[in-house]
């Protein structure tokens, strides 16, 4: 190389931290959420509910906490991830509040006692989620330190995934065995397992990607990996089938396998992994359809939602009616009938939004998810180390996959599977786990965007003099 760069005016620019933009966006996100909350009260009660102001103040305090933590602990992190996620979280709270009011009204009509509102529980989980988000930023100073725990994460992840099968503490709710019940509390350990397994996938592929990418045999013009290198793919496939068979959880099974295949593709940049993954996925899907009644039922309901409307497909049919009555502009918050869909607060919260905010409102929410995923993938590209790249990509792909599977299921694009809508749906485990995942993403993002000048470089540091 004979050419020499003489003026490397690189990295001598002040990288803006964009924390100001984050404050502005957070404020706007809060205004959107508060507007939703207030609109619910005005439409249903005609005045503000007595607890609305304290709830909104609590939310504002939590957002402030999240922002201060990012400002001091991850100064250069991406400015739009936290606001987008916060907006979705508050909208979820507003919708749960709205359904609480509907339940209270129905109870009053029937002369019963109003059930205790779920929004407080969800708010408590939100608080715990944000506290753990801050804790992640405090504890994980550098995401690369997580790579040390690759196999610990795998072990812990698998244990958590299988824990609900243990007799005594495991519990089956609505046909899926994914819950732990200790005392009065129930928790889905699978949600935390998702993060641990993402860490494991990232760490594992960082080490093995070269052999997975380079050693090939050619079959029919496409290069395929050697048999022995395909081992991990098969292991992932068997474990996700195992989750499907023993825990009857279609969603987690799909997410787990999809995540592993996408990360394999990102790590090796070989399309053949996608082909192999698709083949295995189709094989598994056909096998599951033929072998298990509950999978067959899901597919039948998907194909013929109005055939057995009174019974097995009641839920999906009601959800479709909800979307239809919402139309383009929606009925307005508090003015539709989302409570008619069973599990409107959790599995079918997207249908509730579709009905009350219409296609236009729902699209805005999907774009918010899209922005978070895009920022995550951008973080992955910008990140300088392979582990960080894979970790950021894994966390954002798992978020994107979840949203796709849930929204696709509820809107009958794909068969319905039991995954929670991240940040929106009622359910503490999912909310807490997703905030932890966002904490990790912010940590990687901070490392990726931090300018070189801020990093201590050996070359720049003055030589220390040891005086004796």
């Amino acid at each position: 190389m004979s050419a020499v760069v003489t003026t490397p005016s690189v990295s001598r620019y002040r990288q803006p931290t964009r924390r100001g933009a984050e404050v502005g966006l957070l404020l706007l996100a809060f205004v959107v959420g508060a507007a939703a909350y207030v609109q619910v009260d005005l439409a249903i009660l005609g005045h503000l509910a007595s607890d609305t102001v304290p709830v909104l103040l609590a939310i504002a305090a939590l957002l402030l906490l999240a922002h201060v933590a990012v400002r001091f602990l991850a100064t250069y992190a991406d400015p739009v991830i936290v606001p987008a996620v916060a907006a979705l979280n508050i909208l979820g709270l507003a919708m749960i509040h709205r359904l609480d009011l509907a339940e209270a009204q129905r109870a009053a009509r029937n002369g019963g006692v109003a059930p205790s509102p779920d929004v407080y529980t969800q708010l408590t989980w939100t608080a715990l989620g944000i506290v753990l988000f801050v804790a992640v930023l405090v504890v994980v100073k550098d995401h690369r330190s997580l790579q040390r725990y690759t196999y610990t994460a795998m072990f812990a992840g698998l244990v958590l995934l299988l824990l609900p099968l243990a007799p005594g503490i495991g519990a089956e709710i609505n046909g899926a065995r994914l819950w732990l019940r200790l005392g009065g509390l129930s928790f889905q350990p699978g949600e935390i397992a998702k993060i641990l397994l993402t860490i494991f996938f990232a760490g594992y592929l960082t080490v093995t990607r070269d052999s997975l990418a380079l050693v090939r045999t050619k079959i029919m013009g496409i290069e395929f990996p050697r048999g022995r290198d395909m081992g991990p793919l098969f292991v992932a496939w068997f474990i996700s089938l195992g989750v499907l068979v023993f825990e009857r959880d279609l969603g987690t099974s799909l997410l787990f396998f999809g995540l592993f295949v996408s990360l394999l593709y990102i790590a090796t940049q070989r399309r053949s992994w996608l082909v192999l993954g698709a083949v295995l996925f189709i094989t598994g899907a056909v096998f599951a359809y033929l072998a298990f009644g509950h999978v067959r039922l899901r597919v039948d309901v998907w194909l013929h939602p109005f055939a057995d409307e009174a019974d097995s497909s009641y839920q999906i049919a009601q959800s479709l009616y909800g979307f239809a009555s919402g139309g383009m502009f929606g009925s307005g918050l508090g003015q539709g009938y989302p409570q008619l869909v069973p599990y409107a607060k959790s599995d079918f919260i997207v249908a509730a939004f579709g009905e009350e905010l219409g296609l236009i409102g729902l699209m805005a929410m999907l774009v918010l998810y899209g922005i978070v995923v895009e920022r995550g993938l951008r973080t992955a590209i910008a990140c300088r180390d392979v582990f960080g790249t894979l970790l950021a990509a894994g966390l954002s792909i798992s978020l994107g996959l979840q949203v796709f599977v849930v929204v696709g299921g509820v809107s009958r694009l794909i068969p319905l599977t039991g995954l929670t809508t991240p940040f929106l749906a009622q359910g503490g485990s999912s909310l807490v786990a997703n905030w932890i995942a966002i904490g990790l993403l912010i940590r990687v993002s901070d490392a990726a965007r931090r300018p070189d000048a801020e990093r201590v470089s050996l070359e720049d540091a003055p030589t220390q003099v040891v005086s004796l």
Partner: protein
Amino acid sequence: MSELLLTLLRLGFLALIWLLVIVTILVLRRDLRAPRDARPLVAAPALRGGAKAARAPKPEKPPKVKHGPRQLVVIEGPLTGTVIPLGTGDVTIGRAPHSTLVLDDDYASNAHSRLTLTNGTWVVTDLGSTNGTWIDRTRITGPTPLTAGHTLKVGRTVLELRK
């Protein structure tokens, strides 16, 4: 609550949630441009690299090319102002640390393009980059000669040959 007010609230809320989305996207747009708008921490030319190069014994003289361009200059992008003296050897551009010009540019590939001197003309070859190599406004499809007065675009970086 009157019907009219509720309708206004309902449409107003849809406008508000889209406002959030649009403002978020505007923030992202500014973020993409950030490196160019940013102020330099120190005056660009006086740099360690330059000083070191001046003090160091002169490397063997690059073989003279008659008439041809002598430098490749970055005129746009985060590395604006960087000058690469041209000899007869190949110049590689990309994010990979072993490239002649190492770009810190998300839109550039690791091995993006190569300039080769063939019969006194610099010829640009795209090395299978994702976003392509562009001469003026055209994406090149094969080895293409680059002459002074035309711009070469790699990712967000624009380069030019100079005498």
